[in-house]
């Protein structure tokens, strides 16, 4: 027996959730699907393949005030802003949810990042299993699955009668408290088939390729547009700087990209990663080597956003394939 919610009950449930949570759900903005806070269940756009951006911004916002700096009567005070309120990300794809698992390892490792940790704690993830695969999808090759429930609090799977509701965690249990669920014997649809990509030995292959000219060749066409980093659910490069405006001074953490030319430039002008190739190596090195060495997993969830949005078609699947071949034979035609 499975638990099921009908389409109309789903709407009612979401409207009930809105009283308790800030509900962040896919919406249609111009021609894009984006996760945005919604006011009504009707604002939600369910017919999305994948959103243009991952929902990572709701746990790791593009701009985060780490603390404000105020001076009163000659005394300086540093205060972090309160992060109250409960968030619920609705219809998060399993791959995007997996992105949070990868971010957790970074931001929750001691010393835990308070901002991320508080948001994480206050956020419930309602997953939505994928019923079809897009050409860029390859989650199954990097440890995920279209119907993977392991990183969400509740997983919804669309069926003819409505949505199967798989409650995974206590948080999920709390979220479905107000949902009208019915017990029914429904066979879950089989997940779509994805073309597998080999990741075998990729960590070693990437290490081997460290000083290979492969990176410069690959970088020939790379424009360092940073799009890959900004759409990625798992990228987390950031910058920290102060900002003064209207008398308010605050220390901010903002998204950044390792592809930006000045990313590593130190005061005085020296840049340790001066070439496009060195920066591209950093990107793939981080995903396929450094992060795995630090935390175990590949820093990729297989959502394929970087593949679809790369203006010059740098395809991480091709890169992995090339790296595996490197040392075996020269790979250059594709780079």
């Amino acid at each position, binding site marked *: 027996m499975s638990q099921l919610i009908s389409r109309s009950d789903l709407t009612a449930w979401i409207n009930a959730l809105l009283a308790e949570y800030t509900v962040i759900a896919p919406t249609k903005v111009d021609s894009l699907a984006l996760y945005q806070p919604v006011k009504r269940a009707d604002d939600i756009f369910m017919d999305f393949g994948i959103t243009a951006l991952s929902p990572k911004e709701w746990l790791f916002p593009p701009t985060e005030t780490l603390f404000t700096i105020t001076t009163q009567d000659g005394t300086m005070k540093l205060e972090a802003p309160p992060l109250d309120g409960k968030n619920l990300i609705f219809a998060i794809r399993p791959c995007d949810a997996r992105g949070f698992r990868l971010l957790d390892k970074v931001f929750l490792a001691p010393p835990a990042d308070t901002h991320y940790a508080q948001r994480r704690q206050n956020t419930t993830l309602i997953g939505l299993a994928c019923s079809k695969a897009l050409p860029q999808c390859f989650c199954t090759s990097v440890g995920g699955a279209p119907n993977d429930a392991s990183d969400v609090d509740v997983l919804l799977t669309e069926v003819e009668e409505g949505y199967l509701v798989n409650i995974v965690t206590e948080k999920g249990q709390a979220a479905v408290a107000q949902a009208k669920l019915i017990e029914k014997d429904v066979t879950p649809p089989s997940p779509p088939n994805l073309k597998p990509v080999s990741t075998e030995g990729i960590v070693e292959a990437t290490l081997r390729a460290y000083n290979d000219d492969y990176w410069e060749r690959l970088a020939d066409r790379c424009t360092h547009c940073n799009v890959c980093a900004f759409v990625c659910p798992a990228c987390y490069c950031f910058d920290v700087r102060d900002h*003064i*405006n209207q008398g308010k001074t605050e220390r901010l953490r903002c998204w950044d990209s390792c592809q930006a030319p000045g990313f590593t430039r130190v005061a005085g*002008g020296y840049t340790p990663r001066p070439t496009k190739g060195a920066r591209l190596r950093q990107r793939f090195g981080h995903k396929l080597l450094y992060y795995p060495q630090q935390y175990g997993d590949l820093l990729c969830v297989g959502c394929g956003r970087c593949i679809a949005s790369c203006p010059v078609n740098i395809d991480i699947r091709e890169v992995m394939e090339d790296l595996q071949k490197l040392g075996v034979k020269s790979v250059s035609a594709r780079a």
Partner: protein
Amino acid sequence: MARIGVFVCHCGSNIAGTVNIAQVMAAAQTMPLVTFVADNKYSCSEIGQTAIREAILKQKLERVVIAACSPQMHEATFRKTVAQAGLNPYLLEIANIREHCSWVHSNDKAAATKKAIELVKMAVAKVARHEALFTKEIGLTKKALVIGGGISGIQAALDMANAGYPVILVEREPTIGGRMAQLDKTFPTLDCSSCILTPKMVEVAQHPNITLLTYAEVKSVRGFVGNFEVEILQRARKVDASKCTSCGICWQKCPEKIPAEFNLGLGPRAAIYTPFPQAVPNIPSIDLAHCRYIKYQEFVARGEEGKKPPQCRICERLCPPQAIDWEQSDQVLVEKVGAIVVATGYQTFDHTRYGEFGAGRYPDVITGIQLERLLSASGPTEGEVVRPSDGTHPKTVVFVSCVGSRDERMGRAYCSNVCCMYMAKQAILLKEHDPEVQSYIFYIDIRAGGKGYEEFIRRAQEEARAIYLRGRISHIYQDGKKLIVRGEDSLLGRPVEIAADLVVLATGIEPSAGAKELAQSLNISYDAHGFMVEAHPKLRPVESRTEGIFLAGTAIAPNDIPGCVAQGSAAAVKALAVLSRPSLVSDPMVAIVDPLRCTGCFACQRACAFNAIDSQVTRDGKTIAVVNESLCKGCGLCVSACRGVAMNLKGFSQQQLLAEVNALWR
């Protein structure tokens, strides 16, 4: 690097009467990096300056803001003040709380105080980003160039030469003397023009400090004050000046006769000629466009069929010292000078543009300058005034004023300044030449503002019995031997018609041909008519906006002889003030390139009006911009042109201006 001191000036009650000084001081105390705040009754007074100096030393101030009157008043004063206390004079910023605040907001003291606080805040933010700047000493060439050998240029050249400085005088024509040499007498004294001019011309020629280059033109000027490099084109005379004795055989025997420019076509000259007998230098030149031998050579060079023109070469054969030199060619001379006086003079308006005056069809409609030549004893008629058409003596002469002056139709809104006076002079001279002559002078207004000028007009009316008619001429046409002049007497409000023997058009003054092009190569500005623009019409009337280049005479605007001479002397003094300095001091507020940011797109170079951007190749082979600090005037146009903020302007840097903007909101 911080420690900013703020000094708020009361300026008696000028500021303190409107702005609450105590509030401004209290606010300044809280501004970032401000470590000391004080007020002064009068900051510019010796007591005030001493207080500032003492505070700098005692408080170890590193930057100073003085909230007082406009920087245009006392920035220079206070720079000296802080320098005396050992600070770099450029680590000072003035907050203008008088002209821009207390004086204009005296009706709202609270708002004025608030504004004064913000102005101080902006100045504090700016001064925090000031950098110490240093002037540089630059050597100079102690030699002057005068362009134009008319009376203005002659005067300037002589004054500088007499002061002991070498001068190069460049004149386009084969002789110096300019327009004044064409005149018969000068108003209002009726001195003989050449009698007073010729000695000066000779003095130029003989002066040990003057290098005279006639038949020569300035082709290009590069460099900057103290260090100009000039290219001068010396046109070939085809006569060896070192051999020529000015005996005159050549021009007497030359078979080719052409209307003489100097006499405005009223008489002939030869193809080898000097413009007039007193020419300086008195070396003839061969007019290549008309010389028969040159034409022959060209014919042969073209290889055309047909009858060959005669070879001529009479001058060559007859020249006693064998001075004719066919091989002589144009030469480009390069000279270094420290200052330049531009005195390129004028030409007269082309009256043929006036259809109603016959558009040049009537030979007896002549210009004022043509009449000068007829009046001149050394002119084509040896001083006999005759009609060009039939050689008879005119009895009724009509003068028409403002031909090409004060006439917007012709694009000449300005007054040519001298016409009223020379018409009066010519009426007097005509009467002297022939008591039967009756002059009619059509005028719009009589402009006679000079010393003795009004009396001179009176003399024309009373002694020479010239009849002044106020009004414009509508039409001139030939009727038999007479020229019928139709106009209106606007005082009586009725039409006038005069049957004249001779009509004299008082053609207006316009800049010499080529003046615009010269101004462009000198990088000095000129107005819509081509007159050179003064650095300031009142206070810097003989300086161009380019340092080291000075102006004199009718190149600036129509002027009479005393005015031109005065300007020539004035320009000379200004030039001497440059030349007499041991060295020049550069303004440190110039542009500077950040070589790491420059991509070498050279938008700065395209924008720069002073050729101050050069290129240089960096160690890694990149071609980037570099500022020639000597040429840079500090306008900052290049800074705005630079998208990548590689270009900056010392003293008004992007950081400084941005700090001011941000201070308004931070």
